[in-house]
């Protein structure tokens, strides 16, 4: 699955939103590597910044948002380019072509005035992948691959003539029409029934297997991550607090937030006596907590957690965590004195 070739590397990303209420420090230094061919899950609750991170990749952050600093290295052909430094028209060529998106609400992702076939074909034509004739034919093929019944007629339907599940399939077809290297799926099945969700997830997995597409899956649903992802990143309040393989995340969670999250999720296959909530609430990112942003809610908080943000440590191969609990005493002491 992952042959260790990094296809996307986010380094030191900071994103702020300049609102009337104040500056929302939405992304507070995120480092993330995604390997070619894998499914990387980005999980976290509301406001943790997972959507913002995903959109920052192709500079889809509208004002009042601003990418303050960082690098987003994308492997284009055989060399790495920094997407944050490319001219806008270059990024536009990549967006929708090599890096494509699936968003949460299929109804707002589709233009109500054009047929589904038109919208799928348009993506290909605009990126110079095909002429209109070819594109139309390919659109039918793509719809067929998403297991939509009767694709020849569906191609001529308008979005309002289709159900939610079908619209999402059209969105998937659009996203896959140019054989993207990286597919970013942001809560793709939140608005859809659970049986349809299962079908769409199977579909994505199948397509990923066949075409080797790398998928960045963003969700708040721990079950979905467990089923789909190879590796996972856990985000909290703008920080990426833990990264690991999916098995290790569930069997050996390191970060206190991750542990709290797992204890709060009901597993229908187990008899649970009590769900354990995480006390406190998600912080206001205009005035975020100092140091480690999780410290007000953390049962293991130490004095240094309030003062300084913890460095990232690799505890086991491939398993990273940003938490002072995993930094040895000596380093902690040095950090305190700086």
């Amino acid at each position: 699955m992952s042959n260790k070739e990094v296809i996307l590397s986010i380094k030191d990303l900071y994103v702020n939103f300049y609102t009337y209420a104040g500056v929302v420090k939405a992304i507070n230094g995120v480092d993330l590597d995604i390997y070619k061919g894998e499914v990387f899950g980005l999980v976290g609750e509301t406001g943790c910044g997972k959507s913002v991170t995903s959109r920052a990749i192709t500079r889809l952050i509208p004002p009042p948002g601003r990418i303050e600093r960082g690098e987003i290295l994308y492997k284009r052909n055989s060399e790495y380019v920094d997407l944050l430094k490319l001219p806008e028209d270059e990024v536009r060529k990549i967006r929708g072509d090599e890096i494509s998106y699936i968003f949460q609400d299929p109804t707002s992702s589709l233009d109500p005035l054009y047929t589904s076939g038109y919208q799928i074909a348009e993506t290909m034509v605009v990126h110079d992948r095909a002429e209109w004739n070819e594109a139309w034919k390919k659109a039918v093929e793509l719809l067929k691959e998403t297991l939509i019944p009767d694709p020849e007629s569906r191609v001529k339907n308008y979005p309002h003539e289709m159900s939610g599940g079908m619209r999402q399939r059209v969105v998937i077809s659009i996203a896959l029409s140019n054989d993207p290297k990286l597919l970013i799926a942001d809560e793709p099945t939140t608005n859809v029934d659970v049986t349809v969700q299962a079908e769409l997830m199977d579909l994505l997995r199948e397509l990923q297997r066949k075409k080797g597409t790398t998928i960045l899956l963003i969700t708040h649903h721990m079950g979905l991550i467990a089923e789909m992802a190879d590796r996972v990143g856990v985000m909290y309040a703008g920080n990426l607090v833990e990264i690991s393989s999916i098995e290790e995340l569930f069997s050996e969670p390191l970060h206190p937030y991750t542990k709290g999250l797992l204890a709060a999720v009901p597993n229908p296959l187990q008899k649970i006596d009590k769900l354990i909530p995480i006390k406190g609430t998600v912080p206001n990112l205009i005035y975020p907590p100092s140091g480690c942003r999780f410290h007000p809610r953390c049962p293991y908080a130490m004095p240094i957690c309030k003062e300084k943000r913890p460095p990232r440590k690799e505890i086991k191969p491939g398993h990273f965590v940003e938490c002072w609990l995993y930094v040895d005493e000596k380093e902690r002491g040095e950090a305190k004195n700086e």
Partner: protein
Amino acid sequence: MSNKVLEAKNVKKYFPVRRFLLSKDYVKAVDGVSFYIKKGECLGLVGESGSGKTTLGRLILRLIPLTSGEIFYKGKSITKLKGDELKEFRKSAQMVFQDPYSSLDPRMTVFQTIIEGPRIHGIDIGNPEEFVIKLLETVGLKPEHLYRYPHEFSGGQKQRIAIARALAMNPEFIVLDEPTSALDVSVQASILNMLKELQAKFGLTYLFISHDLAVVKYMSHRIATMYVGRIVEVAGSEELFENPLHPYTQMLLASIPIPDPKIAKSKPKIKITGEPPSPIRLPQGCKFYPRCPYAMPICKIKEPPLINVGNNHEVACWLYE
């Protein structure tokens, strides 16, 4: 002699839909539903879009009129109640809605919101402030929240306010319609725990409506699955998960993403197909027929009745009749 707090018999709700040229069609949102809930019990109602579960919740509380059928509350029929008698019923049966953002009046303080019900019904609560403060404490909020407005609270806190509002009426029965769907996982856990404690403490009876089976299993003693306006299976929570009989329930259970990667990757692959149909002009016979892997000709001709197959387990499927 029975301790059934709520009983529904063959409840139907059809919504008329205007077509062109004066003709009408009907959306059969709820089409012949019968069930009961015992005192102190939590009955979970699960279904996807078009299942009718939300409409059923509103019918039970008489928020919308029935097209036909009967509902009994504590043994008495409430189907045709009007005026004062309806008000009496409304005191004892309350609802908590899904979206805390829209179910609280943004122009009323917490105090006003909670006190409104008892005031309208003329219930004597003694010192109003003390009364509300006590309720706030019960739901985990603080006295200083008394005169704040909804927008000053988080989603989870708003839902607590909504629950306090329901409790202010000293109800015996509460319908909870997706009470935690709009909340984050960690907040959801604390609200669910609180609901359970309240149920134990005050002997409340719940109808818990949700599309999230994992949550429903955690909260409910018994679970009913609905498909396109009908109940297709009812059983105790453990029993339903261990021994799902109806092919739709099986499909539903197989669709739940399990938060455990070991099990997730080795789950039996039950083929999940299709989408729930929209409840206008459905074909004859069992509504699950187009998606059912075991469908037989009789399933197309006649709809299976909901029958008891023992162990308090009911199912509507020709494989069991």
